[in-house]
Every structure is written in structure tokens, then in C-alpha cells.
């Protein structure tokens, strides 16, 4: 336990130093890139809870990511225009309001989708979550007031009392703190009584039912918790990029999140963050060389899935095992 905590601390410190390194080396974009990777890591980690720990292959996770983001966007839109949502809820640019609301709204959406989808399993479940996510995509495209296809420009990042959110480094550190907090939350969650039940359901649902667990309720709870995490990351992303668009909830985005989870290693805590970093780095690097970067990514993904079991972390573990 002690060594793990030490390792996490080291990683945290290294990540905190990124803005300084970026300034020193003149690579200003690094702060933005690492920040984005951290946020995607959070989204992937939230998916990993139901996927890696819970065994629920949800292909609609990006919907909750996007909904969380749109909460921020809608709040900003009304704030900027001086109008109120549905005529009663005023806009705001305060992160202390927008983030919690994003989490709750995403959680509600997850409750709705989960309540219907979790009555099925297997292949059906995957298709249904995919379909529902796409439904949200079309819904948001149709809302002309909130930008429709073009999305919402959030010209100013939400404010946090006492901090200058216009400063790139400050914003990055805020994101880093959220990512660290979320990681610790997930670690606690996995070790909790509930976490153990979910792990049991993944391994053998029939056995858990035979012990008296109404698995549907537990899976739904996990689904909602996971959706809330996705909502939080979406809200952070919109703050970070200052832009909310329906593309955030497109099903290919769900696919990307799944790829991050599997690249990093399903069912591990650090895996999703590593996978997010890896995929994001890969995509941005390849994009510099060719506009057809999706092809090598696709091929790589295919090879990884067909040949390895457990992604990068398992690979690392294997190499470590060989070295010891």
C-alpha cells in the first residue's frame, strides 16, 4: 500500500510540473494536451468502472460525457444572453454551480438509459446503449437555440472563487486536482462493499443472484455513478476547450473511450488514464503526419485486441514479470 501511494504522489507531482516544463521548453501546447488527456482519462475511468469492474459493455457512455458538457454550455449561453433556462433557471458562469448540476443531470440521464437497458444483457445491451446515446446526439443537434450542429461557444471558462481561470496553468491545475480526486474516489469505490458486489456480479451474476443480490439494482446504481463521472469530465472538458458540441456524444466518441480503457488495461485503476494518454498522444502525433491517421490507429487497435489480453498494463506487467 505504501509504495502505491508513493508512486501516485510522484506521478501527481510530475503532472503538476507540466505547465512549468511547457513554459521552459516553449511547447505551449503541452499544457493543453496533457490537460485534455487527463479529462479523457477521467471519462475513460468512469467507463472502466462499469466495464472493467462491472462487466457491462456500454457503448453509449459518450452521451453522459456530452450531457455534462452541455450543462456548462447551456448555463453559459443563458448567462451570456441574460436569459433563463425554461424561463426560470438563470444562467451562470460559476463552476461551483455548473459542475454539480452537470453531475446530477448526467446521473439522471444515466438512470433513464440504465433503467431501460439493464433489463437486457449481452449483445442487446451493447446495441441499446449505443442507440440511446445516438438518440441524445440527434436531440442536441436539433436544439437550434443551443447551437444545433455547431454547438455552443463558451467564451469564458467558468470561474472559481479566488482563482484566475483565464490563466492556462491555473485551469490545468484545477483539472489535475479534479482528476486526482476522482482517481481517489474510484479507488475507494472499488474497495467498498458496493465495489465488491459489482466485482462479484461481473464474475458470476448467477452466483450473486443465488446469494440474494438483486443484480439489476446494483448494476443500475453503478451505471448512474459511472454516468455522473462522465458528466463531470464532460463539464470539465467544455470548460477546458471552451466549446460544447454534439460531437462530444457521438457514438464514435464512445468507441474512443472504450479504446482508451482497453489500451490501458481493463479493470485497473490507472489503466484508463494511461490508455487515454496513449491514445491521445498517438492521435495527435499521427495527425501531424497524415490526415488519414485513423487508419493506423484502427490497425493498431485491431492488432492489440486480437493479440493481447489486458492491454498495455498487462503488457507492462508481463515485461516486469520477465525482468524480475
Amino acid at each position, binding site marked *: 500500500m505504501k509504495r502505491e501511494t508513493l508512486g501516485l504522489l510522484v506521478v501527481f507531482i510530475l503532472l503538476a510540473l507540466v505547465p512549468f516544463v511547457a513554459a521552459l521548453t516553449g511547447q505551449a501546447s503541452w499544457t493543453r494536451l496533457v490537460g485534455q488527456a487527463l479529462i479523457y482519462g477521467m471519462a475513460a475511468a468512469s467507463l472502466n468502472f462499469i466495464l472493467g469492474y462491472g462487466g457491462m459493455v456500454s457503448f453509449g457512455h459518450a452521451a453522459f460525457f456530452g450531457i455534462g458538457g452541455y450543462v456548462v454550455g447551456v448555463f453559459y449561453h443563458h448567462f451570456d444572453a441574460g436569459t433563463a433556462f425554461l424561463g426560470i433557471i438563470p444562467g451562470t458562469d460559476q463552476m461551483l454551480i455548473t459542475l454539480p448540476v452537470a453531475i446530477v443531470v448526467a446521473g439522471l440521464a444515466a438512470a433513464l438509459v440504465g433503467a431501460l437497458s439493464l433489463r437486457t444483457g449481452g449483445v442487446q445491451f451493447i446495441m441499446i446503449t449505443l442507440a440511446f446515446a445516438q438518440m441524445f446526439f440527434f436531440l442536441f443537434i436539433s436544439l437550434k437555440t443551443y447551437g444545433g450542429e455547431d454547438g455552443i461557444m463558451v467564451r469564458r471558462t467558468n470561474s472559481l472563487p479566488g482563482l484566475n481561470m483565464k490563466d492556462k496553468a491555473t485551469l490545468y491545475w484545477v483539472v489535475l486536482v479534479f482528476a486526482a480526486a476522482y482517481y481517489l474516489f474510484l479507488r*475507494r*469505490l472499488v*474497495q*467498498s*462493499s*458496493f*465495489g*465488491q*458486489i459489482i*466485482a*462479484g456480479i461481473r*464474475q*458470476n451474476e*448467477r*452466483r*450473486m*443472484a*443465488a*446469494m*440474494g*443480490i*438483486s*443484480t439489476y439494482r*446494483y448494476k443500475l*446504481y453503478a451505471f448512474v*455513478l459511472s454516468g455522473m463521472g462522465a458528466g463531470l469530465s464532460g463539464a470539465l472538458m467544455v470548460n477546458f476547450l471552451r466549446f460544447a458540441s454534439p460531437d462530444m456524444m457521438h457514438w464514435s466518441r464512445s468507441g474512443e473511450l472504450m479504446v482508451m480503457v482497453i489500451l490501458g488495461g481493463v479493470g485497473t485503476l490507472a489503466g484508463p488514464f494511461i490508455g487515454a494518454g496513449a491514445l491521445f498522444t498517438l492521435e495527435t502525433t499521427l495527425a501531424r503526419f497524415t490526415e488519414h491517421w485513423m487508419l493506423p490507429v484502427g490497425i493498431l487497435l485491431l492488432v492489440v485486441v486480437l493479440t493481447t489480453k489486458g492491454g498495455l498494463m498487462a503488457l507492462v506487467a508481463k515485461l516486469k514479470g520477465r525482468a524480475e
Partner: protein
Amino acid sequence: MSRVLDIAGLVKTFGGLTATDHVSLTVDTGEIHALIGPNGAGKSTLINQICGELMPNEGHIHLAGRDVTRLAPADRVALGLGRTFQITSLLDDMSVRENLGLAIQVREGGNFRIFDRAARRSEVWAEADQILAESALGARAAVKVADLAHGEKKQLELLMALSQRPRVLLLDEPMAGLGHVESQQMIEALRDARQECAMLLVEHDMEAVFALADRISVLVYGRIIATGTADEIRTNPAVREAYLGEEDA
């Protein structure tokens, strides 16, 4: 003597096939009631209906006086129904201790807590350790279930089922696949367990049946053709006919 499990007139059909044909059967408190029958008699179908994985077409199932015919499996467990699986169904990635601990944790409740640490629920683990110490699996507590021998898995299933403190325990061929020594161990374990709950023992192994059962029912082609004590069943002509060439009675 109260009825802890009361099955009345159960019927289950699959298209043209009648798998369960007006089955009536009771288990009283403190009793071990064995259910035997040749292969294909419909024992699995019957078990699945009792447990709630399958819904009967007709008939009723009462558990400690409550009608559970349409209840979900998890709800029946809450009312006191336990079961073991013929093909062991355990949590393979976890150790013996972790499996048992989880079973106790489930019984104890509080499983929607997300901020506690399951490992710190000391009463749960103390009970698990005690049960393991008193059982044949004490030395294997840290072994992953995937690495256990078949007989050990069966033992673990029994321990987990008993830890739920059921009123009646449904045992689906606990002797299946066990060697001679392991069978003796299982029979012993079941004998010890009879003080804790009533049992409906579905079995092929006649040695175990005659060693343990207070009453025996015989299921043939979905129908109960006889119910009685070991001696009554042994001498029943219909039963002998059904079993001719099947088992060594």
C-alpha cells in the same frame, strides 16, 4: 413439525413436452428430503422452478408459509431459500476466503455503501475465518477458486450456502464428480449441517441418499411416483422398475 418448503401441483411444459407433471412435495423443519430419479426425469427443471429461474405453468410453491411462486430468485433467498449448484458456480478470480467473505457480506447487508472499505468489515471476516477454520478448507483459505480441486469447490459452495443461514437448502447433486474420500467428507459436512437447516437433496449417489435422507421422493418423467422412508422406497416395486439397470441400490 412445520413445513418449510411446500410445493403443490407444479406443472411446467415446453411446447409439447411436459417436464414437470403435477409435482407435489414438502420439506419439514429439520428434515433432509432426498429427490432421486433416473436421468432426464426433470430434476433440473424442478430445481430451477423452486429457485425462481424458471416460472411454472401451474401450481404453487410456498416457503415458510409465503407464496413465492412468482418471486424473483433474489427475493426467495431473502425469505430463506439457499442452493448449491450442480456445476459449481463461484467467483473464480477471488480466493476461498474472499468468496465466503462476500457471501457473509451479502447476508449482512449495507452493500450500497460506496465509502466504506469492505476489507475493514471485521465481523464479516471474523465469521469467515471461523467457518473456514472449522471446515476442511481451512488450509486453502488464500487459494483462488479457479485453482481449487473439484471437491473443494463443492465444499466451498456448501459453506457459502450455509453462511446465508437459509431455512431450507436446495442441494443440486453435491456428490457429482467427487471421489470416494471427498464423498465421505461431503456426507459428513451435510450431516453436520442438518442442525442448521432443512434440506432438499437432489442426488444420484445412493450411498449418500440412504445415509442422510429422512424421506425420499422418486421423480420419473416429471412425476413423483413414490415418497417415503428409505426402506419403503427400497422395496417399492414401481421404483425398482424405474431404476432397473440404472443404479446400485
